[in-house]
C-alpha cells in the first residue's frame, strides 16, 4: 500500500494492518524532521512532490520490494506540505515471516525512496531564509 498525504502520520492503524499470524516480524521506520542539519538550525520543513509520478515511483518500490523479499505487508506513506520539527515525514512498514526480510526490505525501501521518488524538501531556517534541498551527489548521501 502506498500513499501521499498532507495529514500527520500515525503508525497505529498501519501497524495493526501489518500484524498477522503469518508474520513473525513487523518493522516500522519513521523518517522524522530534524532541528539541525550540518550545524544549521531549522524551524520547519516543507515537502513538495510531483504527485502523479511520486505515486508511480512509490508503487514501483513496493512492487520491487515484494519481488525481492518474501513480504506479507509493505506500506509506504510520505507526508507533503508543512511538517513541523520532530514529526514524521515518511512511514515505512514491512512484515515478513522472519525478521531478515523485513529489515533488509525496510532499509532498501528508505534508501531507494530517497534516490528515486520525486519529492523535495525545503528547509525553513531559523534565520528566516529558505532552501530547496537538492543533493548533488546522491550516490554518496547517507542521511
Amino acid at each position: 500500500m502506498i500513499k501521499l498525504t498532507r495529514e500527520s502520520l500515525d503508525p497505529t492503524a498501519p501497524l495493526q494492518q501489518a500484524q498477522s499470524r503469518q508474520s513473525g516480524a513487523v518493522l516500522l521506520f519513521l523518517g522524522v524532521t530534524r532541528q539541525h542539519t550540518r550545524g544549521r538550525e531549522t524551524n520547519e520543513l516543507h515537502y513538495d512532490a510531483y504527485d502523479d509520478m511520486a505515486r508511480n515511483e512509490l508503487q514501483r518500490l513496493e512492487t520491487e520490494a515484494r519481488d525481492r523479499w518474501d513480504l506479507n505487508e509493505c506500506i509506504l506513506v510520505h507526508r507533503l506540505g508543512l511538517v513541523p520539527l520532530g514529526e514524521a515525514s515518511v512511514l515505512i512498514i514491512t512484515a515478513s515471516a522472519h525478521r531478515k526480510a523485513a529489515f533488509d526490505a525496510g532499509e532498501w525501501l528508505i534508501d531507494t525512496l530517497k534516490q528515486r521518488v520525486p519529492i523535495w524538501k525545503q528547509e525553513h531556517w531559523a534565520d528566516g531564509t529558505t532552501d530547496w534541498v537538492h543533493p548533488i551527489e546522491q550516490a554518496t548521501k547517507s542521511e
Partner: protein
Amino acid sequence: MKVTVKLFAGARELAGHSEVKLDLPPSVTIADVRKKLLTEFPQLASLLPHAVFAVDAHYAAEDSILDENSEVACIPPVSGG
C-alpha cells in the same frame, strides 16, 4: 510544436514558473528540451546538469522522443524521506 515542461522545487524557484512552454521542432528529444530550457532560462545553469527528466510521469532517457501531448517534467535531485 509547443512542449510544456513542469518545473519543481529549486528549478521552479529559479525559473519563476511552475511550468513553461517551449517552441521546438517536431520529434525533439529530452536532450533538446534540456538545451532549450538552458537557453531560455540561463538561471537554471547550476541545477540543470544535475536534473533528469520524466515523460508522462515516468523517468525518461535523454534520447526519448516527444510529441505534442507528452507531459514533460524536469526533476532536480530529489530529497524526500
